[in-house]
Structure formats: C-alpha cells, structure tokens
C-alpha cells in the first residue's frame, strides 16, 4: 500500500525577490551571505551578521551539501517565529570547500524558529528540499534563468 503524498510546498517559503540567479563566480560563504541579505530584506528585526555567524557555525558541523548539487545552509534562530528562505541557482557551479568532489549548483538557505515545536517541520523542509532538488530538476531551474520563472516552477511542485 502506498503512503498518501503530502509533500511540503517549497514555493510558499519563497518569492521571486528571494531567488537569485548567480552568474558570477562566487565562494560558498559569499553566496550564503547574499542569500541572507535577500532573506533580511524588509525584515529590520533580523541581524544579517548574526545570522551569517550562526549559519556558518552550523556549516562547521555535518556538511549540508548533497551529491545532487544542492547545498542547504540553514540555522535555527530564537528571534523568528516563522520559516524564511532564499534560493540561488548557479549556472557556473561552485566547488564545495569541504569536499572538493562536490559541486554546488543550487543553494537553498533557510531559517527556522528555534522552538522545539518547529523542529519536525524543519526536518520536513530539509527532506523535501533534498528530494525535490535532484540533478535534473536543478538543471531545469538553471535553464529557466529568471527568478519569476523559477518561482513559478517551484510553485508548480505543490
């Protein structure tokens, strides 16, 4: 018996303004910083530098880069009460600094509320991201080239 599907809608976390198509050559840390800036836009209560520090601290733990070409830097923050995210697609892949054999072609940064009650949803988002962003799908997003089209495609994943 197959289990009923109830995949998380990733589009609900994003807007075209929070999607970057990064054509320039960039380091992983610089890309994370750009995505944090995108998340913090219009959110005066968020401290970008503090978030960057927390995300980079998490990156020092178990790697968040997958062999599918997706990197999912993330952090759980006390100061937020809902999930926030930003996406970058990279026509020119970035080499993962920890494992040079892995190339990053898409980076999905997301921030979760630190309260334990949100942890299950936090895991669900990680799982959905890893499952959705397979190599073919990432290539498709890169080919779309425009944030609005990428957003529409993600919305269509629902």
């Amino acid at each position, binding site marked *: *018996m*197959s*289990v*009923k*599907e*109830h*995949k998380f809608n990733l589009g609900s976390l994003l807007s075209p303004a929070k999607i970057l198509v990064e054509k320039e050559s960039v380091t992983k840390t610089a890309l994370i910083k750009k995505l944090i800036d995108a998340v913090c836009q219009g959110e005066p209560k968020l401290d970008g530098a503090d978030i960057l520090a927390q995300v980079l601290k*998490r990156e*020092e*733990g*178990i*790697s*968040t880069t*997958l*062999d*599918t070409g*997706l990197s*999912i830097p*993330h952090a759980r923050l006390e100061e937020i009460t809902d999930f926030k995210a930003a996406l970058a697609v990279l026509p020119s892949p970035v080499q993962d600094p*920890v*494992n040079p*054999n*892995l190339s990053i072609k898409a980076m999905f940064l997301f921030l979760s509320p630190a309260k334990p009650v949100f*942890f*299950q949803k*936090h*895991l669900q988002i*990680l*799982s*959905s*991201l*890893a*499952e*959705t962003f*397979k*190599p073919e799908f990432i290539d498709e997003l890169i080919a779309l080239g425009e944030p609005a089209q990428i957003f529409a495609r993600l919305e269509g994943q629902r």
Partner: protein
Amino acid sequence: MSSSSSSSQSPLRVKKVVVITTAMLTFIPFWKAAAIVLCDFGSSAFYAGGIAMRAFGPAFPWYILAVMLFAGLLLMLELEACSLFVRGGAYKIVREGLGDRMAKLAASALVFDFLLTGPISAVTAGHYLGGLVNSFLTQFGASFHLPEGGFAVVFGLLVTGYFWRQNVKGIEESSSKSAKIIAFSLAVCFLLAIWSFITIALQGAHIPPTQLDFAPGALGWAGKIDWMKAVGLLGMMMAFGHSILALSGIETLSQVYREIEYPKAQNLKKAALLIFIFALLFTGGLTFLSAVIIPPDLIASKYGDNLLSGLAMSMAGPGLLKLLMQTLVVVAGVVMLSGAVNTSLIGSNALMNRIAEDGILTDWFRKIHRKYGTTYHVIHLIAALQAVIIIVSGGNVYLLGEAYAFGVMWCFVLEAAAIIALRLKRRGEKRDFLFPLNIRYENFYIPVGLGLLSLFLLSIAVVNLFTKSIATVAGISFTVFLYAVFTLSERLNAKKANTMFEEGYRERVNAQTALDLKDALDDLSQPNRVLVAVKTPEHLYHLEETLRTVNPDDTDVIVLYSKPVENLLYRQDMRSAAVDEHELFTQVIFLAEKYGLPITPVMVQSNDAFYAIAQVAAVADAKEIIMGVSGLHGAQTQMERIVMAWGAVKERELKHPVKVRILWEGREISYGFTN
C-alpha cells in the same frame, strides 16, 4: 527507491559492500542447547555408578541419585552465572568476582579436569565396545576374548585422535547431531527402564543397602587419620565426594549459553530444567535400576567398567534379545562418550583461549593455524596430554575416576564464591535469575542459599582432598604447574609489552564482499526490517535497546557499519574516525548473543555514513532506522543530515512510512518519512 542510483559515481554513495558472517549468529532452541550439555553431562551415567561401587560398595546408587539432585542446585548456580553474561564461563566469572589470581587457579584446576574427562570418556567407550564384542564372542561360543583394558586404550586413542583432527580443522559441534544422540539415548533409556520393571516384576528386586563399605584405597589419607572415620555424616560426605564425578560435563551449560535463542533467560531456564530431569532419570534412574537388578558381586567382577551393559545383560529374557539391548546401550554409550571427548577438547581449547586473551599466555599458545584458523598449538597440547593419560591409565576407568573431580569441585567452590562477591560488587544490577534463598536489604539480595551451597561445596572439596589422594596429588601438582606457567607467561608478556593481548576477545568472523547492497541483503526473510547503524564498540546503547524490544518473529535486524574512506568530509579526514570493524562486530555479536537474536551484520565503505544508512535502509525496505547519538555533532544535527541524505537517495514512492530514531540513555528523537 533502489540501490542503482543515478548518482552511483557520487563521492558520497556506498563504495563497497561487505557481508559479515559468523557461526555465532546462529541461535538454537533450548532443547538443542540441553542436548549439547547432556551429550557430555549425561555420559557420566556410563561410568559413575561403576566407579562409585568400587569406591564405597553397594550403596552407590543412593549417592549417584543424590549427586543428580545436587546437580539441580549447581544448574541454578550456572543460571545465575549465565545471567551475569560474562563471556568465558567460570574462569571469567571468578576473574570478575575474585580477581586474576583466583581466576588463574580456577582455570588451572578446570584444565586438569578437562584433561581427564576426555580419557575417562574415551576409555569407558572402549570398555563398552570391548564388552559388547566379548558378549558376542561368548554368545557364539568363541574360545577367546578381547583384553578389555588394552582394547579400551586403543579405542580411546583412536577417538581422541579423531576429535583432535576435527578440532584442528575447526569443525563446530553440531547441536542437531547432539539432539539426535540424546533422542536415541532417551529411547534406549526408556526401553531399559520398561524392561527393568518387567524384570523386577518377574525376578524380584533387592533394594540397595545404605551402609557404606569403603575399599581401603578409597579412603586415601583419611584411613590413616584417627578422627576421619568413614561413618555418619563424614562417611556420607566421603561417599558423596566419590560420586561427584557424575557431574562431569555440567559446566558445558555456560559454554552453550551464548548460543541459546530469544527469549534467552526463559530458554536457559527451560534448558536447565530439561537437563536436570534427563540427568536425574538417565544417570540417577538407570544407575539405581542397575543396582536393583545386577547382583553387587557381578558389578564388582564384571560390569564395573560398563555398568549399563551389565543392566542390559541381566534382564529377564532370551540371550539374543539381551545382546540386542546391550548393542543399543553400547551404541548410545559410544556416541555420547565420544561426544564428551570432543567437548573436553573444545572446552579446554576455549578456556585456554580466554586465558590467552587476557595476556596470560605467550604468542606460542595463540598461534593460528594457517589453513583452518584454529589455535592448533593448544589443541595439540591438550590431545597429546590426553593420549598420555590414556596410555598411563592402562584402560583402568576406576583409576581415572579416582583422579577426577579435583578441578570441577574447586572450580565450583571458586565460582560460587565469585558469584557471592559479584552480588556485592554489582548489587544494583538487575539479573534474570538469582539463586534461591535470599534476604532482601534495600537493593542488595543477601545470598543465604548461595552461602550454604558454597559451604557444602567447600566441605566436599576438603573431604575429597583427604579421600581422593590420587586426585589431590595429581590435581594440586598440575594446578600448581599450570598456575606457574600462566604466571611466568604473563610476566614474559608484560616484559615484551605485547600490545596484541590488549586487544581482548575477537569474534571469528568471515567478511565477504557482496556484488551490491541487494546481494548483501538477499537473505532477509521477515516482513519488517529495522536498520541499526553502529559506529563504535563503546556506544551500542541503541542496538541493545533495539534487541531488547524487537519482535524477532516478524522483524529482521540489520546492523550496519559505514567505514569511512578516501575523502575529506566534515572538515576532517574521516579515515581517522574509522574503528576496527573486527572489534566493533565482536561487540555487536556479543549483544546479539546476549539477547539470542539473529542479526544481519553489514559493512559498507562510504565517505558519508548518512548516505550509506539511507541507501541500505532503502534497499532493505526498512521500516525503522535507528542510530546512536554522536558526541561530536549532537542528535539534532545528525537528524538533519539523515533526512537530507534520505531525500537525496529517494527514487520512488514509499510502500510504508519509515521512522528514524536517534536513541541515547533514556532519550530519543524521531522523525517519520512519508511520501
């Protein structure tokens, strides 16, 4: 999901799959375990009565019966010893409870008895066979007879030689064969009993006397000590001491304990009960019937070395039928006694190996056979000493019996004392079985019953020191010699700072490379699968918790070790995090044995343990993934990575929800995957 991932060339995916197999992951039901013990313990029925008769006269069946009832108490002692789950039997128990010196003494004494059980069993088998041949010769009017002593020596050497070869080759004891032998012996016992009752009904019976009539040699030095009169309670203790050899082989229970299937504790109790009933009826019952039916002078003159053949030949009925009955008795006797020869070699080799693991023996003893992987020097040594004992005995079973029981008695004395000490040392520890008669004081059970048993064992052992002079001289000489060898070897090892001995016990395992994950997991047969990921031998709480709660009737347990290779991940070279898989799987197998549950151990080489776990769980169609917590990263970070890895390797819809659990002492976090 499938194993043939589109990303199979990915640096994170499984590189190599290794299936770990070991004989120790095959568990047996309680009745097969009982059969293995009885093949050794039950075999004393063939010689204990005859030896006791020669030592203290026609009262012997009462004492053999008493010893068999006493065996019930010793089986309970073994139950408590086994419930401590200290792998390595009495030697390790004594080491835990009383320390190294006492353990070395216990081991030395036990090796002495192993050296004797082989010859006594092999020579007795020779007597039974020689007696049968002579019965046939008499039946058919032949004018010559086999010299039974000489024949017994030759046969004993042949049997010992055969099992020496088998042990060098490393051929394991078959529990199925043991069960067949015991079933056959039980049928023979039943026939003998029925025919005995018919004979008693036809010819009448003489109830054996209770008064003791010690042979001069059977009193040993006690005969020269005024106050040591063989009367009253002291006389009874002397007779009991001469009958104690009927317990030969009872210690085998602690060797087969590790093989008993789930639920281990209950099955162990059932096995002990079965052993007790069988031994009481077979050894106690048949010895008693022999004394009732065979005239005492005939036992003394003709059937002292093959009492049960005497029982068969003393039945009421036609000669040919009696000869057929004797044949059945001899077949049962020869196979059981030969099995006991094998067990003595296996037991002494296992004991010497346990001692070697503690750094007490030099490299020479641990040398592994190139082809068979056995510790062949120890086996050669034990078999050679047994062969010398057989030749020196000249086939005299009584002489061998008089030398026997020194080791087993003192070993039981030390084991009982060690268990009392462990009651104190591990007083908060829950045990599946406690020797009866305890007074509870807070979380400590004052071992009144064990104390009384220890006193009784000590009394018999001390009395035997005086009465069984051959056993005392030979036993003390050998024990002191072996203790000196152990001590000297230990010092030599310490000087060499031989790190090999610091490794401890290693399970013998076979590691075979599988074609792929599907091939490695081909033997899974249960509808449910649980994958338990292991990382270090010190952190297996989650595996133990799984084994404690899993239902083995519908669930396969896969134990996975992902060995790090090649690349740099997580900002460190993961190769440095790799543990010795041999040591890890030894501990895993130890836990599987503890709960008597079969597991499927698999090792994969991978740069990312979480990918490996997800891949194996997917291929195995596991319903649960269970991990221990990492001290380095923490449970939440681990959970994040496993859900990411799962998503990355997932290629098709799930047939059922999959739950990931990370367990540590009293705590758990979990996450459920659906589609």
